[in-house]
């Protein structure tokens, strides 16, 4: 019993030191600010749109404002969702992409009936009180930190200025009572204790608020209705079919321009050599057979590359060794760390492998990096995460590079996601998340 109490107390008191707390605190700070801003923007546009469109003349302008509100809400919502996914480690899927209609009226109609956007609007409105609490929790933590530092500040002051600061403010986070000051070093000790208590309180406050906000994000910013899911599945199925067709076309093109062409040249050289066999000019025959031999060797190499491109045999030994062999053949030094608890389905392994190959090729071509780091691991028994980072010049953009957008397509066919962080000047980190089973 006593041990139990000690254990719980330990958990309660060490909460401020946990990595999770720091992430939640950061989430509360950023999410709180974004929440307040999002609330303001959404409310203003929404109210303006509704008021203006209520008057007959203003309908057009009002509808425009309304669609603007919906578009911005969707954007803000996706910002919140990404913050939550990144900092709270939760895994809320992106709702289906907006599918624009045709013609002005069609577009407008789709916009106004965009459920995901309307749910984002709700989130932005409901978020205001949550944001207030989040920011307040951050304030509590800041006060706690400052107070905790009071004794040190006092000592520093004595050390460098020869005397104590005389008096020192103590911040207390409660909205009433006001701050007070201490006038001796000894008095800073209880202030520090107050700071520590504030930190513990802040840690648990952010935990509670984050849990609540997490539920909100999941409920309002994720994909929800069956119809949305179906439309997403339709979209990704199309992508999967196109991807397969494109792959076959590529294979055909590679065969036509590679092995087939070389074998034709081989046949041609052998044919010419045979014609000349009776000829005493054996030098020519030798030259022709040399050329034929070269064609045969090149055709073999082409076929090998092609076969490997279809399914790399090394993948049979598992992703970790496949990636290791990919890394050894990389032009830029690459290192692999792997922690795969459950082996993913073969299709997922193949996608992960080709993502890695393409990303390494991209880095080699564009990044001027000195080093590539490849990490692959499984998470929560259901997610395979591939992280490839380089110390190059950055500037990779999904919307520009056709290679990257091709990967996004390929990954989305199995409900995976691909995130790129590549500020100008680098570094570039690409994260690919795939389900373990397609």
């Amino acid at each position: 019993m006593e041990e139990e109490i000690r254990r719980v107390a330990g958990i309660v008191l060490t909460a401020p030191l946990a990595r999770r707390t720091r992430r939640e605190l950061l989430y509360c700070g950023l999410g709180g600010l974004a929440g307040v801003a999002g609330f303001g923007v959404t409310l203003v546009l929404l109210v303006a749109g509704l008021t203006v469109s209520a008057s007959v003349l203003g309908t057009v302008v009002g509808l425009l404002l309304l669609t603007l509100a919906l578009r911005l809400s969707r954007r803000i919502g996706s910002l919140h969702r990404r913050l939550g996914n990144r900092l709270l480690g939760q895994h809320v899927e992106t709702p289906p992409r907006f599918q624009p209609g045709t013609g002005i009226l069609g577009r407008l109609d789709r916009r106004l009936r965009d459920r995901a956007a309307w749910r984002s609007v709700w989130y932005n409105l409901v978020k205001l009180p949550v944001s207030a609490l989040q920011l307040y929790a951050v304030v509590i933590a800041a006060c706690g930190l400052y107070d905790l530092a009071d004794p040190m500040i006092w000592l520093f002051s004595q050390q460098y200025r020869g005397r104590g600061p005389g008096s020192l403010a103590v911040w207390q986070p409660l909205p009433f009572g006001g701050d007070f000051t201490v006038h001796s070093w000894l008095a800073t000790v209880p202030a520090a204790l107050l700071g520590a208590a504030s930190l513990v309180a802040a840690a648990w406050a952010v935990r509670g608020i984050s849990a609540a906000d997490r539920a909100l994000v999941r409920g309002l910013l994720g994909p929800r209705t069956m119809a949305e899911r179906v439309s997403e599945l339709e979209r990704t199925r199309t992508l999967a079919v196109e991807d397969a067709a494109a792959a076959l076309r590529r294979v055909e093109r590679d065969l036509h321009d590679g092995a087939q062409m070389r074998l034709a040249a081989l046949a041609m050289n052998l044919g010419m050599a045979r014609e000349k066999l009776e000829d005493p000019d054996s030098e020519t025959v030798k030259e022709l057979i040399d050329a034929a031999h070269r064609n045969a060797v090149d055709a073999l190499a082409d076929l090998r590359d092609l076969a490997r491109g279809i399914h790399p045999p090394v993948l049979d030994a598992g992703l970790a060794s496949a990636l290791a062999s990919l890394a050894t053949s990389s032009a830029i030094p690459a290192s692999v760390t792997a922690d795969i608890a459950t082996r993913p389905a073969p299709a997922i392994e193949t996608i992960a492998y080709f993502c890695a190959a393409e990303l390494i090729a991209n880095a080699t071509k564009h990044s001027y990096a000195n080093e590539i780091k490849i990490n692959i691991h499984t998470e929560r028994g259901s997610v395979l995460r591939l992280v490839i980072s380089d110390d190059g010049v950055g500037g990779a953009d999904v919307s520009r590079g056709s290679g990257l957008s091709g990967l996004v397509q390929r990954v989305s066919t199995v409900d995976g996601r691909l995130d790129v962080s590549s500020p100008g000047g680098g570094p570039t980190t690409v994260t690919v998340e795939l389900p373990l089973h397609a």
Partner: protein
Amino acid sequence: MHVVIAEDAALLREGLTRLLEDRGHVVSAAVPDGDALLAAVAEHRPDVAVVDIRMPPTHTDEGLRAALKLRQDFPGTGVLMFSQYVETSYSAQLLEGGAAGVGYLLKDRVANVAEFSAALERVAGGGTALDPEVVSQLFRASRQRGGLATLTPRERQVLALMAEGRSNAGIAAELVVSGGAVEKHVASIFAKLGLPPGESDNRRVLAVLRYLGG
């Protein structure tokens, strides 16, 4: 014989050039795409053009389209299509304006230099050279239309070789029969296809066309 080559793979372009020059022909130009082919033919007026079907920029049927244009603008120049695939619709388009001075060979055939060269010379001289693969595809297509029901298997063989552009002597050598036997088969084919006696070469082309066109 003056030849222009259009082929986008440098390896094959150079190989063909060498092969033809080895056999004493003059390769006036070897170019990598359809537009350059038209320009080269206009400039050099060769006896025959060897044309790859898939060439830049779209890598689909540039060669065929260039060839059809050649047939129209320079009827005196033979056209030998040279491809890794046989497509019935390609051969049909190519043969639409008549089989004289037209050839369509798989790239594989270049392995037999003598036959390839002979086929090219035939096309240059206004004859026909169709790949056995092309012929059998067209055969299948026309059989589906019921055009050849009355021919015996042997006659069909003879007609297929005629479609490839062989002479009676060539057919006799290929089938290992006497020249007289071939002539008998040919006469029987003409009769069954209802082709009146006249200039024999003309009847040959007509028989082949009837046959290919179904």
